[in-house]
């Protein structure tokens, strides 16, 4: 068989690619409801919730990335097994795997609902799931290198129209909608910050991405930079949505970001309803999120079970995600579940696991 990977290191990505992957894949469909949650807790001060979320977000990113960087290119399963024993590692890996797959299923269900309500009213939702999962599985099966290269292309495709639309949106916002400022009690702000956590469903992917970095020792800085970029994006979107729609409309609209997109109109553009097009650009990031879930789910599953080819794991994960998406949960139930998952397992992987791993690692080293 011919060597197919001579020049570019096989299964290794650069820090820049890692950052792009993070920005593209960290947000699930929660991105489109983010201003609503912020407005629910802090009305016109919602942007403050987003801002305050970014600060601990940076800390969490630094914690996860800093801990993962300690183990270089060692896989998550390997170092948890080495430090925490095989049974504990198996439990941790299973929880992480289940969280990734289950959240992907819920996000897919939400995505299906959005697409059906805005673009494809008559298409059976299962067909939408199959299209998304089929494409995502194809990307996941190609491996991390191909996914990283794809992300580099997608970020350009998504960013250029988003920037144009962003500028147009910024020109038409009413900043008085954000007045008066600083009127929300700190308790509400804190609760809002905690609830926003589920937006970053993909932060745990960092645990599984680090083994593929070409310079894992510099990964923490790259992760913090990526998180900062994503945070700025999050604040900007919240500010623009609140300023454009007002906090009342933002709070009472299920997907305020999509409403904002639908309201945009670039003067002189050839297309009439540009929102649909922009929505389709956003769909690309959902494809990317789904492919990340399948890739990391398959990687984790394979590394733990140590059997089967990567592609079979990807297909198995895709089937499970599809089954989860088909469970007849309501949207309220889905958001409730995503919240609970974040508050339990999510925070566990953001805060608890790094602390445990750092302590055990230090103890093991001092014992040696």
């Amino acid at each position, binding site marked *: 068989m011919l060597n197919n990977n001579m*020049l*570019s290191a096989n299964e290794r990505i650069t820090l820049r690619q890692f950052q792009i992957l993070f920005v593209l894949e960290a947000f699930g469909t929660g991105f489109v409801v983010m201003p609503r949650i912020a407005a629910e807790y802090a009305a016109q001060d919602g942007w403050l919730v987003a801002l305050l979320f970014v600060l601990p977000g940076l800390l969490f990113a630094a914690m996860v990335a800093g801990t993962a960087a300690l183990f270089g290119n060692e896989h998550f399963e390997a170092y948890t097994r080495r430090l925490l024993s095989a049974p504990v590692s198996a439990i941790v890996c299973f929880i992480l795997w289940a969280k990734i797959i289950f959240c992907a299923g819920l996000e897919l269900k939400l995505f299906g609902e959005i697409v059906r309500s805005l673009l*494809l009213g008559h*298409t059976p939702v299962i067909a939408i799931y199959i299209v998304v999962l089929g494409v995502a599985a*194809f990307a996941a099966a190609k491996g991390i290198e191909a996914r*990283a290269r794809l992300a580099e292309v997608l970020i350009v495709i998504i960013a250029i129209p988003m920037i144009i639309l962003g500028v147009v949106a910024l020109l038409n916002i009413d900043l008085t909608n954000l007045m008066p400022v600083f009127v929300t009690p700190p308790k509400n702000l804190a609760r809002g910050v905690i609830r926003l956590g589920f937006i970053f469903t993909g932060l745990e992917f960092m645990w599984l991405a680090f083994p593929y970095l070409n310079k894992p020792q510099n990964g923490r800085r790259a992760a913090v930079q990526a998180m900062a970029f994503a945070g700025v994006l999050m604040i900007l979107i919240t500010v623009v949505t609140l300023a454009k729609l007002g906090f009342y409309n933002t709070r009472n609209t299920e997907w305020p970001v999509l409403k904002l997109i639908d309201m945009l109109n670039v003067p002189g553009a050839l297309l009439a309803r540009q929102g649909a*097009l922009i929505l*389709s650009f956003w*769909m690309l990031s959902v494809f990317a999120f789904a492919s990340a879930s399948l890739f990391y789910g398959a990687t984790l599953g394979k590394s733990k079970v140590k059997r089967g080819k990567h592609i079979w794991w990807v297909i198995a994960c895709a089937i499970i995600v599809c089954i989860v998406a088909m469970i007849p949960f309501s949207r309220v139930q889905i958001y409730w579940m995503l919240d609970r998952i974040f508050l339990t397992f999510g925070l566990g992987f953001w805060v608890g696991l790094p602390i445990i791993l750092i302590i055990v690692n230090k103890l093991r080293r001092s014992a040696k």
Partner: protein
Amino acid sequence: MSVVSGKVSKTLDENIQILDDLYTDCHDVVSRKFPVGQERPVWVYLTYIDMMNDRFAIEITVVAPLLRFGARNSFKENYKDVFDLFKDSGIDTADFKELDDFDEIITMINAGESILFVEGYSKAIMIASRGFPNRGVNNAEAEVVVHGSREAFNEVIRFNTALIRRRIRDPNLKVKHSRVGRRSETDVALMYIKDLVRPEILNEVEKRLTNIDIDGILDSGYIEQFVEDSWLSPFPQVQMTERPDTAAAAILEGRVVIIVDNSPFSLIVPVTLNSFLQAAEDYYNRWHIVSIVRAIRYVAAFFAVALPGFYLSAAVYHPSMIPLLLTLKMSVSRQPVPFPAVLEFFLMDAAFELLREAGIRMPRAAGGALGVVGGLIIGQSAVQAGLVSPIVVIIVALAGVSNFAIPNVSLIAGFRIAKYLVLLLSAAFGLLGFWAGILILLIHMAGLKSFGIPYLFPYTSAELNDYSDTKDSFFRMPLFTLKKRPFYSNPNNLTRMK
């Protein structure tokens, strides 16, 4: 393929018998046994294949000198080694070689060389005399340029190597020959500059060529299919060119050119999508206009793949995206059409592909008539008959014309296939399907490599060469800014300009 094994016999008649047996019923093989010398003549046997060599050159460099030499000399005891004597004084050419292996001798005869056997010696002299009929150096037809050389490769490997050598007079430019094809024994030459090529790429090219095991190679297209990385991909992973300047430019970038005898197209490896969207004259013109033309090519590539699919998804699933006035006009024009929009596209596209295929095979004189029949009569009639709507004709034509703005024929073929995937998914799922189709193509290309080089380089992984390659991608920056060679080059020799 070994047809005769063993060494040349000292007995001339035995050698003649072997050749006669081998070339039974080969009436194009010319052979003559004749004596050289007055007293105690030495018998020699000359053989070659008619028209595979330059007969006149053989007459004046071998036959005539030998006969003259024989007329002046007689071989008495004082001549210890007649064979060396013939070599040194009896042949008027510098290009000859001693051979003693019959297998090699047969290969040389078949390749157009002449062989001289001498009685009493278990070796023969191969005299270089290839001279096939050929059509000379003609104008390029598949890669036409306005500005730049008109020369194109032809079917003779040595002409083609010379056309490149004429452009790069560097002793480090290597021309490494090998033969591929058990029966055809086709000459294949690898051309590269020793200190510019990446050794791992060169080794891989040589390895893949060595691995080819087929009876015959009749064109470089065979080699292309054997050395490419992914046979499943519709996108080309080897660049074909008929232009010596394009091949020379590739060699100067550290790439390897494969020249195949009997083929006017040479192959360039490795490739990227970017390299397929570059034309030879991009570097002969000033950067402003080239940058605009490059951008147009990219837009054309997007149109070729995506325009029908995008139109279909917008018109069928999301008509609100189209301005109201246009939607109304489209609705009116579609009213008499009895087919679904997707079928309309396939009908029109099938007609377009038929016309294109017919246009390629037809005599040139009839090409214009075909254009009139296809473009005007069929298109117009189809619209008037209510089989297709005018907008579909426009979209299909625009996508078709966009193909012709892409400078590489192989890439056009890939895009033609990709277009149907996007079209079908768009027809089924609107914008979701459109993006799914585009994503499938992008994922496929993101995973594709040509000899280890990512296919989407430098749009992706550009940092591997400090983003230098991006200066010659979507736009072409001024020549003086392109100081570094592309990523394919040997990393120890990346500076092109100081």
